[in-house]
């Protein structure tokens, strides 16, 4: 059942219900976006849950999620709409010889021959949806410019059909990894949300939410280690999802503590580059051994 929250904490509790622990700013911005009908531009390092935020918002609001994954060279035909050429061609061939030009034209440029792409789907949907435009920084500036009309007025112009306006207000999220400076015009139309890696306590809560059976002590140790790993200069620092995976793996293995051996055995879950593995083993693995007074005392 689609609902509209009245206060920021309603959004927050709604998100928690579907398994997403937002910080205060995230809940607030989501709430404002719903209230004001403005798109959100979400930026932050990879793996902090930008995409997941859109999914969870769709879940908690009871809306359908329409997703547009951006990539270099994405164009209108792939994002907005496309004429179904084959169907049009068949239609023309099936037509009797003496049909007039105008009739055929009226016929083949109808909605029957229109292939809806994500943006179009989001606009034309009778129920309000959550539209996720993922990794907008991967597209070209031309595509960004095309989005402007959509984001400010929620309408699409099709030359042959006229203007299609949104009957319901979609909640739009754009995510970016900040690999390219987005245009001012686009930023101007959006609310801005920067999501960073969560604080220790916050991540502990997240891990506990997704792996509740894990011992509190180990969970705390785990997020501490992950924070330590993120502090290193790595190609790809571990994301939140990887912390959760690691917690589940430890649970499966029945680990009672994170010492050097457990860490080295399971490290591949959070570190995924060969050079990174070397760095982490060298820096964090040693530290863990040192912290384990019991282990070092037993071995000496």
């Amino acid at each position, binding site marked *: 059942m689609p609902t509209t929250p009245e206060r920021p904490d309603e959004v927050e509790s709604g998100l928690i219900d579907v398994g997403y622990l937002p910080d205060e700013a995230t809940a607030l911005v989501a709430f*404002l976006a719903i209230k004001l009908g403005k798109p959100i531009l979400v930026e932050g390092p990879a793996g902090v849950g930008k995409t997941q935020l859109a999914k969870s918002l769709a879940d908690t609001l009871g809306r359908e999620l329409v997703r547009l994954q951006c990539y270099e060279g994405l164009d209108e035909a792939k994002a907005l709409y496309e004429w179904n050429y084959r169907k049009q061609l068949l239609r023309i061939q099936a037509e009797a010889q003496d049909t007039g030009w105008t009739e055929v034209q009226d016929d083949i440029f109808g909605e029957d021959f229109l292939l809806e792409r994500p943006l179009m789907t989001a606009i034309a949907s009778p129920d309000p949806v959550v539209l996720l435009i993922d990794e907008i920084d991967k597209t070209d500036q031309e595509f960004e410019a095309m989005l402007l009309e959509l984001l400010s007025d929620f309408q699409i112009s099709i030359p042959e059909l006229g203007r299609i306006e949104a009957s319901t207000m979609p909640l739009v999220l754009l995510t970016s990894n900040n690999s390219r400076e987005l245009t001012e015009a686009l930023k101007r139309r959006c609310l801005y949300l920067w999501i960073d890696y969560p604080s220790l306590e916050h991540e502990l809560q997240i891990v506990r939410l997704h792996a509740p059976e894990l011992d509190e002590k180990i969970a705390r140790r785990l997020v501490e280690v992950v924070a330590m790993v993120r502090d290193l200069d790595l190609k790809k620092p571990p994301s939140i999802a990887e912390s959760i995976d690691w917690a589940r793996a430890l649970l499966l293995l029945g680990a009672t503590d994170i010492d050097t051996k457990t860490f080295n055995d399971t490290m591949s879950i959070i570190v995924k580059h060969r050079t990174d593995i070397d760095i982490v083993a060298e820096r964090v693995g040693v530290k863990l051994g040192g912290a384990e007074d019991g282990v070092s005392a037993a071995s000496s």
Partner: protein
Amino acid sequence: MPPPPDKRPSREASRRAALFSEPLENPLDAGLTAHLVEFGEELRGEGVALGTSELLDAFSALPEVAWDEPTLFRETLATTLAKSPEDRAIFDLVFERFFFRATELAALTTGIGEAGSGDGEGNSEIDIDALREQIARAIAERNEGAMRDLARLAIAAFAQPGEGSGVLGVDVQRIRRSLELRTDPQGDMPQDDPRAEGLPRDGIRRFEQLLRQELERQQIERTEALPAARPLHELDRALPSGPLQDLASVHRVVTQLKRRLKTQGQEHRGHRRHAHVDIRRTMRASLQTGGVPITLRYRPVRPRRPELFVICDVSTSVTSASVFFLSVMHALHDSFRKMRSFVFIERVSEVTEVFERERDFKAVSEAIARDAGVADISGYTDYGRVWGELLEQIQDELHPRATVIVLGDARTNGRAPGADLFAQIAARAGRTYWLNPEPRLYWNYGDSVIDSYAQYCEAYECWTTAQLENFVKVLTAPEATRP
């Protein structure tokens, strides 16, 4: 144990009531609107690109939240006004300053003072050692409220009223030293004390900010006037410098730079129509039209890829900047086909091979530290000698299409600058640039001799990533568009 902190909340509340003295039923009354516009004006003054539409957004967003909650109010403004991480950092600084001043002003005009503040608490009541430990603990736990209260206590303990230096920054540092707040581990402390492992840098920074705020508050109360408004300290926005954790942010900047370097010049390609016809591609295209070349294909206009000679100072006076510069050199190596790199302190040493061999930045910096052997005796920069050696090594290869880039602070430590040798290098090369990691303000002070070099080259200050990007644009711009 120090006495419990006094009743701050009530004071804070009365301040807030004084500032927002209008009834809450109509939150967007003229008073607040004016305040917010003023706030936006101040943000613009600090270089945040803020449009009217953003301010309007802020106004339309504020009624939606219970904005007597400080964080909600702040986040609402932030999400509508600050649209990049850099802007957000500036926003936070300006927000703190602006609303602090506004509250203090309101307190002044409505005559809310503080009963028994400052000199009321005598030094004798405070156990200094316990205070030190409590502060260390609060910093380690990043307990905002406790830090704020303890900052007041620390001022009461260490800053005798009337004895302050008059400069807040000096007082802050004096108190910090008296408190012995350090980031390095202090082994002689007991195990459970947070100081045994060293305090987090950002925690100490935050505590300093709070100290500063409290000192400023007391000053305002004493003098009953607001101090003159000053722009943000420029260095707050400087290049990410310092130890390992900041290196990651340097890398982020450099990866962005690489991407931009790759696409740079694309926009120029379309405008230049004098390009040569590409016969091969024209013939191929003509196959579609039965061999008649209807559409002409042109050879793409390649962006200028100059031959680069990069010379980087790696002495201690530019440590933080040279980490940054080295990673920039690393990035440049991927983008320019022909490039030779040198590092120098007292002598010059070529590191082109290191950059070509090692793909990993960390290995590069290690190899340079190990093998370059640039520090001879004293470890201080010797520009005169460096130019001489460099000229010897590269003079045969310098030609008008070559570009020389020097990264350094031009501080000679009193030795001969050798500007004539530098002039010879500059004369042989097509273009010569000097990137100085010091703000222009410090140029030519002390032993900096940048001016004697600047007459032979174009000198740029380069201590923020924006300045660096600007420079890259100059460097890669096609010949025709350069002035």
